[in-house]
């Protein structure tokens, strides 16, 4: 274990330039060497960011995602292939294993070359559905490039992606229009909370199969409008990322420098934002952005001498603080703090949640007894410390301090600290004489005691008046 950590450290030191929080080995799978040159700007962008690119063909027999049972690469980029499958080294099961092992995948599709069925079935596992026809593409008669697709309307021009609400942090916005030629539309399932769309088609778009002239497909379109996602993001429970880009062409050099124009009077020709967008999508997929880390978790009893502690970590370093105890008592006041950092691409920075969002703490046993918004109370150079002080519930049991922070485009934070909450010990209750309601009873006891003593005194010192009657009474009591 220690060796592995050491190895990781050495590895990280050696790659000062790597921007990914995870690793820098990137496998690019492309069918023909000739295709490579079409994406040269994208490759240089990636290698500038510190990735070691390895180019392989799916037919390559030496290709393997795993080495000695662990992933041989941190990231995988799949370019469209004409073949029906991706070969024995890239079966859907292997790619799923690759993702389960924590590695990231950027998958690009193209309606020009068609979609292998292996890819379709792989995406189905992620609850992403592709059109049944291999050559379906997305068209839009209002947002197309008038220069190159005046007839076909299949080169979409999209405004910069923005998030639906301000509870989600934005990682993908660019300054100008994004050109999306010959895109494959994806439909995301309703059930999976792991999916989110990075780029959606405009409300006027729909899917269309150019090879089907009958027009039947227009009667029952596969998907239309906002339901079509052009770039979708899947983040597995282990925070491995899987991004599907609907148009591989959009990453080509051609579209990085192209000037485009939307239809309509008064619209000017402008340069595409494809380069920036490609950078952002790849940066997110390969864990350069949206990566969170829990720097520390601490909780302590906020009572007695410890109640005066400040939240600063220097105070917590004091020797007399009982940090992270395993047992509390019911109704204790407890302080909880979690330090979260976000990877900026070069170093860890304090994490700030989106404007309408906050990190929440659950104090739960079977179900939450408390669900509290954590307040960002202070910052260190590398992390924001979110804290909360609260009173434990009047219920003993085995509880969890549980921070489960799952947001789209951010890696999952799941911090569970188990503590025992015990009942009052026998000497922790208030003494009877402190409780005013008990005074009559305490009084009753002492009156009885005094009365009995008085009775004994009277009994012992009273002289019997009539010896006869006295005998009788004694006879009974004997």
């Amino acid at each position, binding site marked *: 274990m220690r060796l592995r950590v050491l190895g990781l450290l050495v590895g990280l030191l050696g790659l000062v330039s790597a921007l990914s929080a995870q690793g820098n080995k990137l496998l690019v799978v492309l069918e023909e060497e000739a295709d490579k040159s079409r994406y040269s700007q994208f490759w240089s962008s990636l290698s500038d960011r510190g990735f070691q690119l390895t180019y392989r063909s799916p037919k390559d027999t030496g290709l393997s995602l795993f080495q000695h049972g662990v992933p041989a690469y941190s990231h995988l980029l799949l370019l469209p292939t004409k073949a029906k499958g991706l070969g024995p080294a890239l079966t859907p099961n292997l790619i799923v294993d690759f993702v389960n092992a924590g590695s990231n995948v950027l998958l690009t599709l193209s309606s020009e070359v068609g979609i292998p069925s292996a890819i379709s079935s792989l995406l189905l596992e992620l609850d992403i*559905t592709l059109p049944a026809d291999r050559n379906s593409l997305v068209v839009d008669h209002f947002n197309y490039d008038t220069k190159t697709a005046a007839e076909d309307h299949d080169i979409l021009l999209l405004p910069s992606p923005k998030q*639906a609400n301000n509870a989600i942090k934005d990682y993908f916005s660019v300054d100008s229009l994004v050109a999306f030629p010959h895109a494959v539309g994806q439909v995301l399932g309703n059930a999976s909370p792991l999916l989110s769309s990075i780029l959606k088609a405009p409300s006027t778009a729909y899917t269309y199969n150019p090879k089907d002239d009958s027009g039947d497909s227009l009667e029952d379109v596969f998907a239309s409008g906002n339901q079509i996602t052009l770039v979708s993001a899947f983040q597995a429970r282990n925070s491995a990322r899987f991004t599907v880009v609907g148009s591989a062409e959009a990453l080509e050099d051609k579209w990085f420098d192209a000037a485009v124009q939307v239809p309509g009077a008064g619209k000017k020709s402008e340069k595409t934002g494809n380069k920036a967008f490609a950078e952002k999508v790849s940066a997110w997929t390969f864990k350069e952005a949206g990566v969170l880390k829990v720097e520390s978790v601490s909780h302590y009893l906020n009572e007695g001498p410890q109640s005066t502690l400040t939240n600063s970590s220097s105070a917590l370093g004091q020797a007399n603080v009982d940090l992270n105890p395993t047992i509390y008592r019911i109704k204790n006041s407890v302080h909880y703090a979690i330090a979260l950092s976000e990877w900026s691409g070069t170093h860890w920075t304090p994490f700030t949640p989106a404007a309408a969002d906050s990190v929440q703490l659950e104090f739960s046993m079977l179900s939450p007894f408390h669900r509290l918004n954590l307040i960002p109370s202070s910052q260190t150079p590398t992390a924001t410390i979110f804290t909360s002080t609260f009173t434990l519930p009047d219920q003993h049991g085995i509880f969890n301090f549980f921070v489960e922070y799952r947001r789209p485009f951010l890696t999952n934070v799941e911090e569970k600290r188990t503590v*025992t909450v*015990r009942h009052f010990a026998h000497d922790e209750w208030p003494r009877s004489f402190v409780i005013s309601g008990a005074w009559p009873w305490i009084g009753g006891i002492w009156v009885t005691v005094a009365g009995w003593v008085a009775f004994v005194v009277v009994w012992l010192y009273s002289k019997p008046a009539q010896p006869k009657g006295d005998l009788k009474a004694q006879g009974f009591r004997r």
Partner: protein
Amino acid sequence: MAVTATNSDSPTSIFFKGETGRNTRGLLRLIILCTIAAAAVASRLFSVIRFESIIHEFDPWFNFRATKYLIQHGFYNFWDWFDDRTWHPLGRVTGGTLYPGLMVTSGAIYHFLRFLTLPVDIRNICVLLAPAFSGLTAFATYLLTSEMSDSPSAGLLAACFMGITPGYISRSVAGSYDNEAIAIFLLVFTFYLWIKAVKVGSVMWGGLTALFYGYMVSAWGGYVFITNLIPLHAFVLICMGRFSPRLYVSYTTWYALGTLASMQIPFVGFLPIRSSDHMSALGIFGLIQLVGFTEYIRAQLPSKQFQTLLRAMVLIVFGVAFGGLVLLTVSGTIAPWSGRFYSLWDTGYAKIHIPIIASVSEHQPTAWPAFFFDLNMLIWLFPAGVYMCFRNLRDEQVFVVIYAVLSSYFAGVMVRLMLTLTPIVCVAAAMALSQILDTFLVAEAPAEPSGDATKANGSASSNGSANIKDKLNSAIPESLRSTKAPLVGIYSYLSKSLTAGAVTAYLLLFVLHCTWVTSNAYSSPSVVLASRLPDGSQHIIDDYREAYYWLRQNTKQDAKVMSWWDYGYQIGGMADRPTLVDNNTWNNTHIATVGKAMSSREEVSYPIMRQHEVDYVLVVFGGLLGYSGDDINKFLWMVRIAEGIWPDEVKERDFFTARGEYRVDDEATPTMKNSLMYKMSYYNYNSLFPAGQAQDRVRGSKLPATGPELSTLEEAFTSENWIIRIYKVKDLDNLGRTHQEAGAFGKGNKRKKGGKRRGARVLRVD
């Protein structure tokens, strides 16, 4: 044993006459008692010799664990112990919900031995505590019986019976470290002190009774038996017109001090004044004050006015007391009778209303052969002894009669209450047998009857009250002659030797039987199973410990183990892992939750297990070995208990075939086959047999050709003989699929294309 009846005509008569004789007899008695105690201890050591010094069964494992906690953390921490390793995630306020007497006793012994610089392992103290206390029980029985009978041999016989009777050995063999281990001693000794108190009428004996009653309360829930028996005794005495200042003093002393003592135990707390089970003692306490007051008034008033006053008073007091009781019960101040109490009167009650009580085997009604099995010849001497009590009915004999009647009933209702019956059976049987021995073992012929020949059974007594007896004789009709003067004596040596010989033979048979039963039935630790190989050698089946040690060594320290509650204490004690439910069945809902998880489909069970943070599931499966105490045989109880809480989701009927059979083979119902318990029991079981030949040796049925499949669990461990099977609960699927889908994908089954949807399209809203 027969020798213990003292003879006065032996050749060395000098030792048996006068002051020397008294001393000799005292010494002999002491030696005999010590021998009995030694025999009692020795006969309980079978299990230690056969197996090893190990804690037995289920509850003792908890007691053992609690004792270790007490030793390690001290008394006050034990008192305030909150146990976070059981009943996950609820925890258990253990210090406040146990009877601490047993642990404190062994803790005290441990510290005493350490003080004497004898470092004895606490395990050995716990293992040997029950035998040690059985020696004391024999002594207490001797004392109790000596109070009952004038015969010098009765006490020794009773002690001897108590020492070796299987009914008591069943709960006190070495390793059976349960509350009953010390509770029976305390029960008998408290009764002895009570009898003594009633006889003497002294505050000291009453106070001692209260003291030992308090000890008893701290040791066993069965103290309620004393709480009700002593008031009943007092009540019957009052009804018989035997109210006396002696009774008044002893009862009030016992009640006041004993109740205060019992309220010091946190688990009991305010029960003595709030629960119906304890109301009789309180009621009799009130009644005895009234009776005492009435006696006092009677002494002061003329009888006519007294009659009127009495009648009015009785009516008023009865009305007020009864009305008050009803009111308090209805308003909830006094807890109504507990379910366990109802089940004492109606044996069918528990099965309908509280399956969790009925599911315990020791709560089942006793089978008739069990009486003979546990008590052998004592069971037919017992009525004779009770009859003897009627012949000479003093206060203490009344007690024997009441005790005998009550406990016989209770022993018939519940197997475990055989334990409370045993002491009185020993006492009564010893009284009967000593009568026989005293009559037939006297070597010299009795003196000639003092009366004339027609009074053949005239008095042989020496008090010279022949005249009165003559008058009595003439007053009593012929048929009741035998009741007039019981003891005569036997003249014929033949009948003497025949009877004595027969009794000796019976006693020897009794010893033989007790030894046989102890050795064969009650000395198995049930943690380790013993079997015989074909060549006669002993083969130990040690699956339980194998599995528990696997858990101990291969899982995280805080890995939660879900199993049926029977194994909770053992997992806690041997594997040292947190459990969801255990043998302290304080939370029926939690047990029902486990029952539901076991008896439902995987899709239903998995969220339950996730919610309870279960890491491992443990099942007991006897199908390979033919071990009948396995979980499939207990399964219906899980279903019933779960049905009690979720009648809509778990239904017992669904586990029976259309013809009402409980089957595990091809014809088992789909509910049965899909239940988690069935799947866990038979998972991969097919692989042991040739195709289609899988056989369950407990149920004696052939299993379906294809075994069940598990998707949310994976097999982690199976013990040598497949008795214990442990499964690990899988984590949620990384891609957010269900485990079934993930499993199907892993096997290469393609999912259906989502393109062809039916019905209206469901749009995604972000």
